[in-house]
């Protein structure tokens, strides 16, 4: 029995960042990388199933990305994942989330898991589509925004609760194997202590290439994607200002601002 957890190393912005010369992204130097918050929850959900089951369950984490991603994979290993796989090839650069889904599906075909978990979305790009496209390429059932999961390893279906708008929950029975995208708050992710992460360095991370999963450079990259980033920028800020003081002072200030705005 095996659960495949797809994870992503996400970027967050450092103070005073600069854009890349091609204006399509932030200069890498100004990015701080960490494991996507949603993935903490999907890994924890897999670990919970593993730890409460009497049958042997293997939790495998997989990520698509360059060497720096190993750090995040190691964190997953420290939290108890059995194996970690990283897929990379220079040509993957520029792929959209659908292509990433295709790669993940190819890994799943090779690994033959009983369940695939992914986060609802990534905190940096927020496409919310990687998990879903993985399901599409696998031709598996899928459920998004899963806030509760009841699943007995090995059974042919699982009962999940999906989070809808307005605090509503939708209870769904889904056939397995399936791809679930896991929502924040479904559990309490464990802490990966630094010693744990260090010790996890002893566990190998399998690096696999496109060929290993039966894909070729033609299947990936910006060229094969259905969408491409054109530019990334900060929109001009609308200037809002809090006017303080007594009512009279505020009105006076307001008149002054209106006059300034008119160019008077």
């Amino acid at each position: 029995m095996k659960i495949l957890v797809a994870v992503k190393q996400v970027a967050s912005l450092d103070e005073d960042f600069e854009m890349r010369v091609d204006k399509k992204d932030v200069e890498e130097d100004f990015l701080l990388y960490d494991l996507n918050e949603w993935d903490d929850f999907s890994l924890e959900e897999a670990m919970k199933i593993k730890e409460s089951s009497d049958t042997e369950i293997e939790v495998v984490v997989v990520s698509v990305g360059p060497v720096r991603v190993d750090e995040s994979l190691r964190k997953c290993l420290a939290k108890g994942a059995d194996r970690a796989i990283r897929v990379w090839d220079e040509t993957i650069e520029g792929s959209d989330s659908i292509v990433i889904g295709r790669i993940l599906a190819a890994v799943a075909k090779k690994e033959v898991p009983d369940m695939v978990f992914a986060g609802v979305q990534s905190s940096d790009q927020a496409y919310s589509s990687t998990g879903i496209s993985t399901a599409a390429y696998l031709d598996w059932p899928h459920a998004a925004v899963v806030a509760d999961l009841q699943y007995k390893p090995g059974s042919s279906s699982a009962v999940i609760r999906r989070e809808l708008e307005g605090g509503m929950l939708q209870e769904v029975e889904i056939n397995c194997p399936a791809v679930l995208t896991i929502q924040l708050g479904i559990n309490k992710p464990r802490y990966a202590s630094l010693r744990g992460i260090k010790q996890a360095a002893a566990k190998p991370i399998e690096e696999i290439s496109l060929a290993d999963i039966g894909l070729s450079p033609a299947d990936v990259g910006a060229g094969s994607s259905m969408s491409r980033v054109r530019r990334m920028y900060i929109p001009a800020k609308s200037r809002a200002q809090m006017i303080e003081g007594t009512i009279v002072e505020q009105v006076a200030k307001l008149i002054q601002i209106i006059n300034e705005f008119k160019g008077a």
Partner: protein
Amino acid sequence: MNNPKEVTRILFENFHPQAIHLFYAFGYAAIAVFIYGCYVQIRKYRRGKPDGSWGELLHRFIDMVKTMVTHRTLVRRDKSAGRAHGLIFLGFVLLFIGTSIITLEYDIIEPLIGVRFWYGNFYLWFSLVLDLAGLGLIGGLIYMMYRRKWLHLPKLDYKRVDRQLGDADFDRSEYRLEDWAFLWSFILIGVTGFILEATRLVWLSGRPSVWDYRMWSPVGALIANIMQTIGVTPEGAGALRSGLWWFHGLLSLTFIAFIPYTKIKHIFTAAASLMFKDPLAGRRLPRVPDEQKVAGYKTITDLTWKNLLHLDACTKCGRCQEACPANAVGAPLSPRDVILSLREFANHTLNAKELPKEAELDIHGKDIGQVFMETLWSCRTCLACVEICPVAIEHVPLIVQMRRNLVEAGEMDPLLEKTLQTIHKTGNSFGESKRKRASWVKALPFEIKDARIEAVDYLWFVGDYASFDPRNQKVTQGFARIMQKAGVDFGLLFEGELNAGNDIRRVGEEGLYEYLATANIQSLDDCEFKSIVTTDPHSYNTIRNEYPDFGGTYEIQHYSTVVKKLIEDGRLQLAKKLNYKVTFHDPCHLGRFNKGYDAPRDILKMLGCELIEMGRTKDNSFCCGAGGGRIWIPDPVGTEKPSQNRMKEAAIIEGLEVFVVSCPKDLTMFEDALKTSGYEGKFIVRELIELIDECMEYDFPEKEVFADVLSLEPHLAS
């Protein structure tokens, strides 16, 4: 003098040989029970892990003897109890030596080589000394009884703060019973000893070699006189004597047999604990070996033999509890209870012949003898307990070791967990960009050197709070001005500096600490400097005491020492005097941890301030509550915070103007507490640097700091 050989103590005169044999049989039995008890205890200690505190045994021994003879740790903060204990101790030691001398002669030397020495003048002096020793012993014991019965000291109340009424181990009345049983049996031994002496005198009042020398045992003589006055005849005394003799003898033997099984064992365990005292306990925490699978203490057998010994050394005196800031504000922590819980747990599990199953050795949990996670997280690692413990018990390393295990298991406050992750990611607890670490320098009218690219005399390790906290940045800028004014050659690591790790280590995140410490050591090693200076006592402690374990040995000074020297050498001119009435709060990590009590006080004097000490000061300073990572864990609402408790203490000082601190975290904690405890407007909280800064006259042009900051951050509303 009569024939001196006859002037000696009558031992077994008039005893039937069988009675003597019976007595010896009891004696041997008592010794056997005693030895077995010791064996069980030693077997228990040997079930612990090894400890590095060996070495320099002679030095340790001398130190221990000094401490014991002077009773210096016992008279601290409780003179009467210390002195009373001194009397009991001295009485016991002398009486023990006395009895040993008798045994030596009667049972060993005389039968073997036929030599006697216990007679004549030696005997008389011996007799006098022992009489006085006995008197002291009884006096001390009476005071202890009085203290327990009538003084109602909170520290002698064994009720637990971490358990509820109704919990099996809540009130610990068995300890109280044991205390009283100990006091009564001890005092009975002493009193019957004197009466026995008196009956002997009355009984042999016709024998000059006894009666003529009675004044050498004055207490016995006095009682003998009283006996005679009330009409006790020599025969009556003789009869009384044999009964009493057996009572006294058997009681004493029982007492000895009981030593390893009762609190009396502290005679040995406390001595051993003092002997293996680690002067850096809590200041430098133990490393976790790389190959060790899980960090910290999970089971009782994870403790070292020395930890286990500490558990048995505790005399329940309650001084640690009395000094504990967490306890003072009602947190579910008493350092004594941590020790006693574990002691009960160890006795329960490790005294048996076979070691119980692993699962039964878990010291974390909610059962009897287990330590609650809330208890461990309440500790501020302020070292007040370690400082005052008269028998050198090291609570803090033990607490941190247990926390390490909680951290590994992720059993901690969610906010703390977030902070640890933030520190791992950004290298600081504020979650700010590394690049912003030195942004406070922008407001200065001069440049500060980058110690990573040029050599400096002083490398200034700034620390997180002083770097990122807006209020503390002002202080930090003040210190920069002072250093610049004095013409000191100094520089910073800028974004090369990471959180020093002191508090992270005390939280128990050893892996993260190692990461931070090694990274900082690498940065420091790449720089050329003579000494490190810091305004942050937390960084100061870990760099000074703990970095050497990771290969980073540097000279480091707290700013107070540096500034004091600059003023003394005339390199810093004070342009004016402040005649504020101030009090000074010793930061734990500067004062208790590193004994930096004097420099800040000297500076205050130089500035012209009138310093009024608070009740709890210097080694008894009261933690602001921020230590041990507690600054990242919110205090429960509705309860008093240690910092508020401290404000109350300061407010007692009539006419107090400034509450002076010299630690960035203190400034944050106390300025907040000043407001929340309702003393705002009565006095103010200032960092010592700000007072020094106030006395300076700077010649460099001040930049318009505020306009600058405001134009960068317009008030935005969406």
